């Protein structure tokens, strides 16, 4: 934070006035991070390491590790995270290899479709799965009624069900992360390995794997943290002995202050673990290695007819399974009294009527808050990306690490950190930040900032410095250079990053859960509300609407950004 006085990016800025302005701008970025990231996190660590009276203590953590139930939750969370990384890796790597290396029918369609599972809204995914794969889901009903099975097969309830849901939700994250790395691996390297006799697995182990490792590690880290932090999926499936579930359940358990404290302790522990994971993987996940949203063209090989259709069958099957939740949610949203039949017997729009009163409010709130959040992301994120890409400003590496850390912090933890940090009345206006709706866009902006930074950073790297310098040498001012040279070349990348921030904000339910007050509800919160205090059909109806909104947004993004998103693999 000494950066406030530093002459940031002095190499680029000519004249002291510009230097001072840049330093102030850089300082403001740090102020923003200090207030909305560092301070809240310090606040939950303070809570976790003190008694109610404010005395320093390690007792809270001792209580945690003395409790066999918590310890079990801890290990089960780790196991689930590792298992999900395993399953998503197998699927995600296979998909990435197929899409980037081989030519087969419908490749373009698949490259678009395989991205979709990741935008499945929270809760909707797991509900949709139970409608199809639950004990009374379509599959079990068919097995029992038509194939004579006595007892339903338990596909869902338990850790294996959580693993299934997370795997099919998160494999695109692995695919996306290694795609970048993979497309940078020069196929000629592999070919030369082959020419000296290294084939198949050997070539993969010796050449391809080491080269794609950095991209893979960053993707794996994200999958691990995501699974680790998800509490909605396990709760619906009756799995309570996980860290995220316990953090959530204990925090909402306000009455018992001891349990409430434990919830905060668990949240702090999860943040601590996130920091450790980031530090361990630090070597691999600097922004350089997970940054790119654009790909160089790679020569694709044609597959033999059999293999070609095997690829189509694999991806087709994968897509079919991945869209089970969407199918289930749609059926439940329109089906009336759907029970113990493969598909609903009657159809109705009654659930849509029930949710229609509040839906416009949810949609409006979602767009307003996410819009503000993205604006904040742009205002803070683009200069951040510029600092990272173009300067040697002091504290730059820390800034980079913090961008990664934000991605790794569980949503509920940041939510509760905001509650604890901002419930004090502000000076002059005498209202706490937690009583003002602006806190929602703020927390969303903070949580989704890395995507904007990463998108902007990637496109800034594409603009070679020498072009800007050339403009500078013929007398263009910094502003002028930015307007005429840099901006036209980077705006698409920035936009894609910003829109990714927008899309993920639209789906956000964990950090906002504790912060939402009446009237501020966004769509995912609405689904949550209908799930906990309405019926599953109403939640499904709202989920259906959210899927539609997300699909339309994605379509619009696709149109605006042209090849950058839809042609992500091409």
């Amino acid at each position, binding site marked *: 934070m000494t950066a406030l006085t530093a002459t940031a990016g002095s190499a680029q800025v000519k004249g002291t006035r510009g230097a001072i302005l840049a330093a102030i701008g850089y300082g403001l970025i740090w102020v923003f991070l200090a207030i909305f990231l560092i301070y809240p996190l310090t606040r939950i660590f303070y809570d976790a390491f003190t008694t109610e009276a404010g005395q320093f203590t390690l007792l809270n953590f001792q209580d945690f590790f003395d409790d066999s139930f918590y310890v079990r939750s801890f290990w089960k969370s780790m196991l689930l995270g590792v298992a999900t990384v395993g399953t998503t890796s197998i699927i995600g790597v296979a998909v990435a290899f197929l899409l980037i290396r081989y030519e087969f029918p419908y490749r373009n369609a698949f490259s678009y479709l395989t991205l979709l599972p990741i935008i499945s809204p929270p809760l909707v995914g797991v509900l949709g799965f139970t409608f199809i794969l639950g004990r*009374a889901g379509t599959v079990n009903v068919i097995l029992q009624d038509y194939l004579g099975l006595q007892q339903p097969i338990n596909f869902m*309830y338990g850790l294996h069900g959580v693993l299934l849901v997370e795997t099919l939700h998160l494999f695109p994250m692995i695919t996306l992360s290694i795609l970048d790395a993979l497309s940078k691996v020069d196929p000629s390297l592999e070919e030369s390995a082959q020419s000296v006799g290294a084939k198949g697995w050997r070539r993969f182990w010796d050449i391809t794997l080491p080269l794609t490792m950095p991209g893979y590690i960053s993707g794996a880290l994200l999958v691990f943290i995501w699974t680790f932090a998800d509490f909605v999926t396990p709760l619906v499936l009756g799995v309570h002995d996980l860290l995220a579930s316990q953090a959530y359940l204990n925090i909402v358990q*306000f009455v*018992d202050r001891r349990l409430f404290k434990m919830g905060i302790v668990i949240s702090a522990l999860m943040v601590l673990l996130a920091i450790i994971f980031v530090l361990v993987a630090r070597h691999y996940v600097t922004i350089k290695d997970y940054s790119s949203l654009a790909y160089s063209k790679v020569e694709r090989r044609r597959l033999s007819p059999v293999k070609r259709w095997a690829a189509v069958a694999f991806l087709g099957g994968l897509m079919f399974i991945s869209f089970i939740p969407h199918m289930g949610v749609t059926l439940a949203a329109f089906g009336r*009294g759907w029970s113990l039949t493969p598909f609903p017997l009657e159809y109705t729009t009654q659930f849509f009527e029930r949710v229609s009163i509040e839906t416009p409010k949810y949609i409006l709130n979602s767009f307003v808050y996410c819009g503000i959040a993205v604006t904040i992301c742009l205002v803070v994120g683009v200069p951040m990306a510029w600092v990272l890409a173009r300067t040697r400003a002091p504290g730059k590496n820390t800034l980079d690490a913090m961008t990664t850390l934000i991605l790794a912090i569980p949503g509920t933890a940041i939510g509760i950190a905001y509650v604890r940090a901002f419930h004090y009345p502000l000076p002059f206006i005498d209202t706490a930040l937690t*009583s003002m709706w602006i806190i929602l866009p703020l927390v969303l902006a903070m949580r989704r900032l890395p995507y904007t930074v990463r998108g902007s950073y990637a496109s800034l790297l594409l603009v070679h410095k020498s072009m800007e310098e050339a403009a500078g040498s013929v007398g263009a001012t910094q502003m002028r250079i930015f307007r005429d040279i840099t901006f036209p070349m980077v705006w698409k990348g920035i936009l894609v990053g910003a829109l990714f921030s927008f899309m993920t904000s639209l789906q956000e339910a964990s950090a906002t859960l504790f912060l939402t007050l009446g009237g501020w509800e966004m769509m995912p919160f609405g689904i949550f509300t209908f799930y906990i*205090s309405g*019926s599953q059909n109403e939640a499904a109806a709202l989920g259906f609407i959210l899927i539609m909104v997300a699909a339309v947004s994605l379509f619009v993004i696709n149109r605006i950004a042209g090849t950058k998103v839809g042609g992500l693999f091409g």
Partner: protein
Amino acid sequence: MTQRREFLTASLAALYAMTNPARAQSTPTIEAELNLITPVSKFIHDAALAEFAKYARERWKLNIKTNALAAGTPVAYGRIVEWKGRPEVDIFWGGESALFDKLAEQKLMVPLNLSKATFDTIPATIGKPKPIYLKDPKGFWIGTALEPYGLVYHPTLLKRLGVPPLKDWDDLLNPKLRGHVAQCAPSRSSSSHATYEVILQQYGDAKGWEWLKRLAANTGLFTARSRDVPSVVAKGEFAVGFAVPSYMAFEERLAGFDIRFVAPKTAWITPEPMGILAGARNPQAARAFVEFLLTERGQKIFMERGLFPLSPKYHVKGAPGSDAEKAVEFTGGVRSYFDREVTNIYDDDKAQARYNEVNEQFRKDIESVLEELKKKY
């Protein structure tokens, strides 16, 4: 001439008053906003707020903006305490009345100051040997409607399992129901907590916990929220649900599911208490809402949705085929709890005094050792 004019003016005024009673009475108007925090389902609170908004338009020509913050009882209580007298909402609705007493003690509630007429139509208690309080003698809270916490089952699934229709708590321990019961942990749901207490107070602590452990061994799913219990039974995911408020099951019935509800004899009946928070921004609207819910029109909202009137004056009744009649049929023919003997063994004071202990014991003896219990029984 003057007289005539005066007469004319007076009669015009009278005419105006007749066509527009709201203007004529110089009733003090209310704030144009009302906010609740409540564990009562959307099915009920949405309808109640919508009807009240309609009433406000008729009576005060007021477009009132209403909002409900849905939160489980512990969360709602916790948030009110956290707000420290500067609440984001005006009214707390639902949960156990003892929590309202606790809030009143912390000076986080204000007296309702209801009209005597309204206050007096509500009996002080119902049930024997232990009374269930329907209103606070000190006037900080009042009940809104009665609702039993019972059992639900899926008739087709039950038949498939060879289990006769359920009648009492003990039917849940049928070994054929192994893995087919859904319930919510008592630490997460007030209906579940109250029903755990019913079992403990009915059988005594030792036998009661033994019973609850056996139930846990039969349980296939501990849901995260109580509202999910009737949902999973309606769908057929699980055959039986424990500790379900009558109206939650009835909502599933109205949504087209074949789900059945039974209130065992000792099932606890909650009056769904309501109180106004100290520091509420809309105290007049809040008070008007409480008064409104206790009128016939207000009580009707409940009676059409599987709850029961709080006053002996009303009975659940409607045209054949109406939702009210469906509700009567659904809850086993009950039209009013004041016509019948209400057995209550649940002592709320006792329950509240050991609230955390029961949750702690659940966690220790049931939740943490669930797999062992399933092997043992």
